């Protein structure tokens, strides 16, 4: 089972279409904030591990919703997709409820698997470009 930070991370990387097609219809909810787009300042570290510095701003979109029972859900993601942030917020609220496990199985698990597979594919592509040094002796 995914923890809350884990499912938020998975939803932040899924498109609105992917989430909607897996989730189907949602129960009624209210928007409390947003969806709204703004900036988040990204930071790096000098030398990779030293003092923080400002690298540049990235667009980000956030949304907060409440279900009828008052459960709050938050959606956060890079980019400007407001619909996706809103759907993620609704799902975040549903995932915390009594039906949470069913929502996990229906929406989060397949998305997480697809994202894992995409990362693994990139990793295998990178591995195919890893240099295998060989001495002249073994090149005969």
């Amino acid at each position, binding site marked *: 089972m995914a923890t809350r930070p884990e499912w938020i*991370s998975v939803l932040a990387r899924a498109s609105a279409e992917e989430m909607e097609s897996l989730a189907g219809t949602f129960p009624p909810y209210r928007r409390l904030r947003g969806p709204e787009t703004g*900036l988040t300042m990204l930071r790096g570290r000098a030398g990779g*591990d030293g003092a923080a*510095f400002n*690298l540049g701003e990235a667009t980000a979109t956030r949304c907060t919703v409440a279900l009828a029972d008052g459960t709050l859900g938050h959606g956060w993601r890079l980019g400007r997709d407001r619909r996706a942030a809103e759907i993620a917020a609704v799902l975040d609220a549903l995932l915390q409820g009594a039906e949470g496990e069913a929502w996990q199985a229906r929406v989060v698990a397949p998305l997480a698997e697809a994202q894992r597979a995409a990362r693994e594919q990139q990793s*295998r592509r990178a591995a195919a*470009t890893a240099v295998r040094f060989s001495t002249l002796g073994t090149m005969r």
Partner: protein
Amino acid sequence: MYVAVKGGDAAIEAAHRWLAHERRGDPALPEITALQLREQMTLAVDRVMAEGSCLDRDLAALALKQSRGDAVEAAFLLRAYRNTLPRFMAAEPLDTGAMQARRRISATYKDLPGGQVLGPTFDYTHRLLDFTLAAEGAAPSVPEEDAEGTGPMPRVTGFLTGEGLMRAEAPDDGEAPPDLTREPPSFPASRPLRLQALARGDEGFLLGLGYSTQRGYGNAHPFVAELRVGEVEVLVEPPELGFAISIGEITVTECQMATQFAGSREEPPQFTRGYGLVPGQNERKAMAMALVDRALMARELGEEATAPAQDEEFVLLHSDNVEATGFIEHLKLPHHVDFQSELEKLRSIRRRWEAERVAARKEAAE
């Protein structure tokens, strides 16, 4: 002095309509989409995004389409758009050590944990024009390693600092770093301020400065300890949640450049590192940034600072291409009154000069 000029409205309107027509090009050909630019002009998009300092590849692609491919104009458009957005919060510093690298090479160690991974690089291509690209073809396939992907890739600089042969970075003091977008730079500039300016600086300017350090303007004998390109997680901690969440990934290019340092009374001879970190894939800029970052350490290290790349005021105040283009291009604005007064002054000086010459000739003749 600039004078508000009226009467150009119709001319401006006509000029902008012609501009839109020129942007579109031959209407018999299909119009290019921002999505196509985002996917197929990736490095141009990355450059605009980095120099516009607004990390959003869709916006950068749109800006590039609007600017007819003019990278600096596109960066300008992004900066203007950025000003319309509220800032939510700062993210936690990116952990480039945990990058999912597509490319990772070292020029200092042949065999290193994680290996030399070439990734999608222009290196080793023959730089011959490929005329097959002039025609449309099927999408090329990518080889994949069957067994497993890449393993962990520890930082090369870690090996050297571990042995005490490379100067360790000053630890983070937990303070929020200075922000150029909020207040203008003050001098002497801190390293975080310099790195921010360089990360958004003009690639061409940094390339020229970096090159100058290699050619003897500033004493550099650099090695690429490590260069990596890939995706890193963006973490924020929104107050409404109270814990850190990952809100997506961003592609960055990181360069660690090792340069010898003769040592001082306090510090032994060792390697120092210049650091480059650039949003998107841009190795040329990350390497140039690392060279300039190292050159700008001259003061801290007690080295003689004689070259342009070692002069932080010179570098920081001229690296931003949006500012530079604004100041150069403002010369095109009407300066009619300014110029009239210059003309008047010049005429009166000329009259005096000619009168003096006549008088001098007369004197010589007498």
